[in-house]
Every structure is written in structure tokens, then in C-alpha cells.
């Protein structure tokens, strides 16, 4: 690409330094699954910054690469090219041992399901990352987090004795208790009814507002996205739009325009560039 005579907007951007406000960033992040004929490019040269102390939502159609982006950011998956930085550390260059340590101490996770170890009680699940890291549990913080998610009376229950919403709140508490640099959540409310989802989202947002936590959350639900400070839109493995202080209406509008936009099968990066050129101005 560097021999392309006309500078490309994305390339200009990828050359930009990481802003100090970013807790996690990617530059030129490419992820390709498989090789040869069956190769699928899940992420096509993504540049993104997640702001410290913000709740960022990632949206996009199914298969657009949301989960992949999250996994690559979190060091759960290897990247094909580009760089990923978390809190100033280059994730892409880490070996397995370093990645394990990173996940253990700097990152928190909430998955859509199977978040908890069935043999452990809620309390044990919450302190699991600290136990694994053999770090002492900060009792005051623990109590604060548990109180915030409203699990005081459920601490000694096993996951099988908890409702889906309670299980996700345990997962939340676990992600928070180690005071990670950033929490990654992949459709954390995907399996919940709307009341449980509301509770969980309110809690996530408060953790950002009150505790200064940074959270990145994948969702396909516009209502969920309204809890975020900022929404990033993905399509075909590329970043195609961004909304600050989203409302349900503005999110739906962007999603609608995404559906309407023709998606070409070739020249992915170029198309992404055109798309982003078209959509990026959509700021509210």
C-alpha cells in the first residue's frame, strides 16, 4: 500500500500517534482466518482508539467482525498484522505467558454465556482472577463491587442456583474486582430479558461514571448501545461510523444506512475507506 501514489485517508490516520486519552488502541489491525481460497478477512486494517474512562459500544451486522475485534484487542486471538496497544503495552508482541499475565491483571472479560466456573460459588468466581494471580483481595473494594451489583445475599450460591441476570452480574463483579485497565464485554446482555439487561447495563455504566472504569462492549441491540458514551460501527471488517452520546433513534438511523450501503466483495479496504468517508460525518 505504501507505493500507492495518492495518500489514503486511513493511512494518514494509521500514522497518527495514539492519543493519551486512549486506554486501548489498534493501528492497521488485520485479521484473516484460513488461507488461500478459503481465507476470510474478518478485520481489514482497523484503526481504533477506546477512550479511558468511557463505555464504548461496538455495533454492526452479524459477521461484521465485532467479536473478532474484541478478541484481538484482548489478546485472546492472534492478529495477522498491525498493532494492538493496551494501556501503553504492545499486545501483538506478547508471548503466551505475557498474554496470560496481561489478561490476569490488566483485563476483565464478560462473555455472552458460560461466564462462571460451575464448581465455584459466586464469591469464589468473583475473586477467581485475583486468586489465580495470587493477589490479595481488597475487601473494601470487593464489598463495594458486590453491593453495586446487588449480590450480597447470593455470594455463597453456585452458578446453577443463580438466574441468568445474576450470573451476568457475578461476571461483571469478577471483571471489576481486579481493577483492570479495561473490561471487554461481548454481548453481555445477549441472553438476558430486558429487565435483567437494563440492570446490568446500568451497573456497567455506573462503574464507568463512578469508578472511572473503561469498558468496551459489543452489542447488536440499539437500546443497549444507548448506555454507551460512544458507539463505533463495523461493517465487513472495517470501521464505518461513530456516534457520540447515542440515542436509540440515531443508532437506528446509522444502522439503517449501513444496511442500505452496498457492500462490495473485493477491494475491502478501499470500500471501507469510501464508506467511512461517507459515514464518518454522521455525528450527533
Amino acid at each position: 500500500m505504501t507505493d500507492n501514489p495518492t495518500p489514503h485517508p486511513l493511512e494518514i490516520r494509521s500514522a497518527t500517534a495514539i492519543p493519551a486519552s486512549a486506554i486501548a488502541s489498534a493501528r492497521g489491525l488485520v485479521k484473516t482466518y484460513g488461507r488461500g481460497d478459503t481465507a476470510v478477512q474478518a478485520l481489514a486494517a482497523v484503526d481504533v482508539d477506546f477512550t479511558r474512562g468511557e463505555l464504548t459500544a461496538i455495533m454492526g451486522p452479524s459477521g461484521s467482525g465485532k467479536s473478532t475485534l474484541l478478541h484481538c484487542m484482548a489478546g485472546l486471538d492472534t492478529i495477522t498484522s498491525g498493532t494492538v496497544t493496551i494501556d501503553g503495552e504492545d499486545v501483538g508482541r506478547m508471548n503466551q505467558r505475557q498474554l496470560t499475565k496481561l489478561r490476569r491483571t490488566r483485563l476483565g472479560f464478560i462473555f455472552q454465556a458460560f461466564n462462571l466456573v460451575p464448581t465455584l460459588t459466586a464469591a469464589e468466581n468473583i475473586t477467581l482472577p485475583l486468586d489465580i494471580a495470587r493477589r490479595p483481595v481488597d475487601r473494601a473494594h470487593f464489598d463495594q463491587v458486590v453491593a453495586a451489583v446487588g449480590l450480597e445475599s447470593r455470594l455463597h450460591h453456585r452458578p446453577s442456583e443463580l438466574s441468568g441476570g445474576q450470573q451476568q452480574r457475578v461476571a461483571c463483579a469478577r471483571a471489576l474486582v481486579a481493577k483492570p485497565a479495561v473490561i471487554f464485554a461481548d454481548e453481555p446482555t445477549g441472553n438476558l430479558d430486558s429487565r435483567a439487561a437494563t440492570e446490568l447495563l446500568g451497573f456497567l455504566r455506573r462503574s464507568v461514571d463512578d469508578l472511572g472504569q473503561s469498558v468496551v462492549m459489543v452489542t447488536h441491540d440499539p437500546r443497549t448501545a444507548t448506555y454507551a458514551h460512544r458507539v463505533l460501527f463495523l461493517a465487513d471488517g472495517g470501521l464505518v461510523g461513530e456516534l457520540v452520546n447515542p440515542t436509540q433513534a440515531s443508532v437506528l438511523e446509522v444502522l439503517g444506512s449501513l444496511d442500505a450501503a452496498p457492500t462490495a466483495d473485493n477491494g475491502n479496504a478501499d470500500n471501507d475507506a469510501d464508506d467511512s468517508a461517507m459515514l464518518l460525518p454522521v455525528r450527533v
Partner: protein
Amino acid sequence: MRRVALRGIRAHLVRFVLSVLAVALGVAFVAGTFSLRTMMSSTFSGIVDSTLLGDAYVRGAEPALGRSMTGTTGETRNTVPAGLADRIATVRGVDQAFAEISGPIVLVGKDGTAVQSTQSPSFGVALYPDDATVTIASGRAPNGPTEIGLESATLTSSGLSVGDRTQVVVAGEIRTVQITGKISMGTALAGATIVYLDVATATAIYAPDGMVSTIAVYAHPDVTETSLVANLAPVLSRDQTAVAEALTGDAMRAEARTDIEAQLGFVQAFMLVFAGISLFVGAFIISNTFSMLVRQRTREFALLRAVGASPTQVFASILTQAAVVGLLGSALGIAGGLGLVSLLRIGFDQVGMDLSGSIPLDAPTVIVSLLVGTVVAVVAAALPARRAALTAPVEAMRETTATERSLLVRTIVGGVLTTLGAAGLVVALLAPDSDGSALVGVGAGLLALGTLLLAPFLVRHCLGVLAAVFVAAVRPLGRLARANVARNPRRTANTASALMVGMALVGAASVLAASATVSTRAIVDDGWTSDFSIRSTTGVPVGAVADIRALDTVGAMDVLAYGPTVVVGPGERAGTQDASFAVGIPAEAFGRTIDLDVVEGSLDTLANGAVAVKAATAKERGWSLGDTVTFASRAGAVSASARVGAIIDSNLVSVPIVMSDRLLAQVVPPGQVTIEFLLVNAAPDVTAATLRADLVKAVGPYVVLSVSDKGDFADDLAGQVNQILVILYALLGLSIIIAILGIVNTLALSVIERTREIGLMRAVGLGRLQLAGIITIESVLTALFGTVVGIVLGVAVAAVMPTVFNGVGLTTLAIPWAQLAGMLVLAVVVGVLAALWPASRAARLPVLDAVASD
């Protein structure tokens, strides 16, 4: 649906392979045990069939004194004249008749030591030139007192070749002889040493009075065994020189087989119990796997239901898979079991036991094994399959952790069996008059089964104690591992069952061995006052007695000899008793080289012709001090009578009656006296070391004689006890291999089952090594659990034995702590080994696959 079933197998190849492996393991355990049993009994009946080839046998009609060539301890009979054979040969229908002349002999091998293996007899046999049952493979038949022939296996193990010169110890003396031929009997003899002598030599040695125990009769072709006996009977009844009877070859062989079975009874019964338990263990391993498999695939089945499959179809598809897996696994398992037995046979071969070459695979073994594998697989799959088939599709699609079947029934049945078994042991312990050994046997069996059934309950409630060490030492891995092991108590218990059985056996055996050793030492310390004893397993040659008496360094020497006799007590009718053994001890020996604990009376009376009776015998027969007993043959001919002059309680002497050497010479014919011990004291001013050196030099040429002081003697006995344990170690080896593979299997399946959970833990920061650590601790905990329960079980059963079997010399209970600790270490090693593959497999799972797997 069949296509779905078969695809299911293909799609989950690892699971499929593991489940086939589980069935194969269970079946291998069963097939291995059964065919080991078959092999042992076929070897021994093979010996009977090939050594007793006669169509009929003539032997003493009167059960009395004598010892048969096979060394069986069955009833003994009067002897018949060897010359009777010539007369029998002329009877109608008889082709040939040979007096069977044989007795003990010691053969010196190429390395200068005796050719013998520990368990098997060594005997010299008269070789009749026209005997068709043996063939001369090379060389020629022995001729004269300085020539011998050797049976081919004996020749091989001696390291000698035809034409070599060597020595034999026979008739109390050392002879230099030449090997003239290799003689073949065409059968494996389980290590027996056989030396052929010419008829005149054998007669001079073993039948100096012309009397033998049996005459083998061979019929003309077309004459049946029964008609042969019918022809012989009138001839024998007319003959006044002998009280003889004829019986068919089949009857004789059946008798011999029964004798051997009786002798091997302990081992046989033991193997049968082990095989029974192995059935259980096998069934456990198999059902374990299937309930795991079906559980893992519940969602897949639910999907099938959702797209329209009926419960019956789902059920049938699971059972089809189970049947395929069961059949395949069983076939592999039978092969595996045979492989294990072949390995064991090689092991036995190394220690000199030549077990028969016949393939140890009979129809019952194959059928039982196939049935066990297939039926257990299908039945084990049926329960979870029924559940999977009946679960409403929506319900199964939702992620609910399957609820564990209740342990209630299993625990109740286990509790009842355990209680009954324990009660049996307690009764045996408290009521010495009851049939102790039967109670112990049944009690131990029930206890073992009960414990196997109770094991899941124990996992749930007692595992914490074992795990406490790991929980405290390896945080937080120990706690995670403990939770995983306790998560499914049934699975853990079933996985540990093979090890449990093996460790119970060895635990019990090692306690028994230690107790026997300690008891022997105590007995020896108590009653043995001589400096040295000299003995061999086959008796002390008379030549050696004279040689040692002639040594200057010997101060005093006492000869302990024993022989068979029939004792008739007061009020007992002559002719109703079995022969028993009596030991003759010179009166001077008491207090000088040997001490016996006297309960009543005095050993001084022995010098005046009285006898001492062991307390247990006196109680059983109702004799008391001062009673007169007579020594007789069963026909009633009285050879002597004596007063009971002392009641003794000593385990140093294992025979019921002690008398002076003079009286023994009177009641036991000279040919039947065996010198068991020479007890030797040093002359004044001679050190023990000097005396030992002299003794060792003097007995050297007799090859099989050993010189021991108290310590050596006790060690020797301990060594013998340990040899009996070898077979137990073989079974332990079997159960350890099965246990390792069983744990590997369970862990590997459990890793598959826990893929998501593992991914989750890795995502929140669990390192690969830590993950491997968790799985290793799980494995070690499982192995330790089986081992601890097994050891407790084994030790409990063994602890009862010294009290119950006090009469046979097991007086003290000793628990070999070091050895038991060693078994625990072994368990840890087993656990670590078993964890290697599953742990590295789990550690290599990519985190994301784990998180994303469905």
C-alpha cells in the same frame, strides 16, 4: 437415524476412541484375570494329564502311611510290592505295567548350584526302557548308578548338556554322575526338575524294601479303562502279598487334579474373587464413559428432537453407537487382556515358572468378556440416553447443568454390604470357635463390594480431608482441582475403583507378610536356642548329618526329624483317623538347642517314652495329660503306644505331636522319616563365625543345605512369604495399568466436557502451567483416593487375620508403614503419569476455541 448414529461416532473421533478405550480397558481387566486363572489351572491339569498317562493304576487299598510322587498332601496309603507289576502284566488286556519308583533328588547344575525353582518339586524317576510315554530326544537311557537322564526342560534350566558330568544328592549322599540322554515328556511342568535313573538304581534308592506306592498299567488298544480295571480286580483280591486296589486312569487323574485344585484352592478362589471384582471395575469404567458421552451431547440430541426425531429414534441412535463401541472395545479388550497375560507369563518364566503354552483363551472368557463389554456399554448408555431422549428439546437447548443421579440407592446397598462384611469380620474376630477363615473370606468380599459401591459417597464426604493438603499448598489450584474431583462423585469413584481393588489386595498382603515375618521372628526368638540350624526344602541328607557331627568346632548337635503316622486317642476307634505328622526330638535337645512352651506336664517325660501334644490338637481331640494314645495303621495294627506327658503351646513346631527320636523310629518306617533340621551349638571357645565357616564348608557339596542363625532363618521365612506375594504384585501391576488408562480416559473426556470452562479460566488469566497443575492434582487426588480407600480396606481385613489364624503361627499383627507409605507415593506417581496427556491436551487448547466452542 442410523446414519446420524454413525456420523455421530465419526464427528467425535476423540470421544469415540476414548470410549472404545474405556470398554477395552474394562474388558481387558476381566479377560486378563479370567485367562490368567484358566492358564494356571490348565497348566497344572496339563501336568496331571501328561504325567499320569496310565489306563489304570494299582495302589494300596488301605489309606495309611506313604507319600506320593506328585508331592500331594492328599491321603496317604499303604505301599504295594513293585514285583506285582510283573504279575499284572500277564493279566488279560494289559499291555505293560510299571511300578512307579520315584523320590526326591537334588541335581547340581552347570553353575554349581542346585537346579530348582522355589515352588516346584525336584524328583528322581525310574525310566523303564520300554515305557512308551517318554521318548529319548537325544543320547540314550541311563544305565547304572553313575548315569542319569534329564527331562528336556530340566536339561535347559540346568545349563548342562548330554555327556556332561555333574553331581546329584540322593539317598543322603553325593554322587557324581554322567548325563546320558535328554528325555522328553512333551509337556510344560511348571518348573519341576526331573531326573531319570535306571530301574535298578531307582529301586535301590527309593524302594529298598521293594515297595512302591503305585503301579501304572497300560492297556492293549481296544481295551477300555473300565474293563481293564474289571480284569485287574479279581487278580488283586486273590493276591495275598498286598492290600491293593485298581482304579481307572481317569479316576486317578481326577483325584490328582482334585488334590492340586485343593492345594491351589487359595490362589484359585482368590483369582475368582478378583475376576468378579474386575467385572465390577470394568463395568464402572465403561458406564462412566457413556454417561459422560451422552451428557456432553445432550444438546445435539435435543436438536435432533427439535427437527422432528422421535424419542425412540434418539434413544435407538444412542444405543446403536453404544453397541458399536461396546463390540469394538470388547474385541480390543480381549486382545489386550491376552497381551497382559502373555506379559505376565513372560514374567513368570523369568522366575522359573514354566506355564503351559496353550493359549489361555477359552469360550467362557470370550463370551463373558464380550457380554460384559457390550451389555455394560449399552446398559450404561441406556440410562442417560433415556434422559436425553425424553428431555423436551427447548429445555435441553437451554444451558442447564445436568443434574446428577441420586446416590441414595447405591449408598444404601453399599452401606448394607459393608456393614454385613464388617460384621462377618468382627464375628470371626470375637468368636474364635466359628469357622474363621470362611467368615473372613465372605466378610472381606462383602466389604470390598460394599466399599466399591460406597465410594461415591466417600468422595462426596471424605475427599476434602485428602485434598486439604493440596488446597493449602497450591493455591488456588488445589481448591479448583478439589471442586472438579468432587463435582461428580460417581465418576471419580468409578475411575478410582481399579486402583482401589489393586491397592486393597497389596495392602492386605503386605500386612499379612509383615505380620508373618514378625510372628516368625517372635516364635524363633522364643523357642530357638541353638547357634545355627541347617536345613533344606527337601530334607537333610544323612551323609550331611555324619559330616557335621564329625566337625571339631561343633559342640552339640540335635537332629529334628518328622514322619507320618496315625494317632488313635483314648476312646477313638482305630481306622477312622487321617495320617498326621509327628516330630522326633532327642530328649537332650530341650533347653540346649530348642525350647517349647509347656502348658501342662513336663518335657522330661519324653525321655521315658511319653509324647507331647500341641494344645490345639489336645483340645480338638479331647485328650488330656496322662491319656494313652496309640500309633497305628488304619487297618488297626498298633506299632506303639504312649502316654501324653506334656501339653505344649509352641508355634516353633508345626506338627501336632512331639516325641523322642527313639519313639519316632518305632512308629514311622525308616523310608518315611525326613530330617528337617540340624540344630548346632558351638564347642566351648569356638566363635560363631568360626563355626559358621566350618558348617558352610561342610554342607557345601550338598548344594541345597543352608546354614542359618536365628536372624537368617527369620529372613528366609520372610523371603518365602514374599515369594507368595509375587502373584499379588502381578495383579497389582494389572490394576495399575488399568487404573492409569482409566484415569487418562476420564480426564481426557472431562477436559473435552469442560472446554468452555477451561477457556473461561484461561481468559481470566489462568496460565497453561497452572491449568496443567489443576488437572494433575485432580488425577493425583483420584489416584490417592483409590489408594487410601483400598489400603484402609486391605489393612482392615488383614488386621483381623492374626487373631483368626493364630493357630497357624500368625501371632502378631504388624503394619508395614513404610510399605504403605510407598504405596501412597506410587499413587502420586500413577496420578502424575495419568495426567500427562490430558493436561498437555488441555493446556494446548487455544483459549478462543474454548470460549467459542459449542
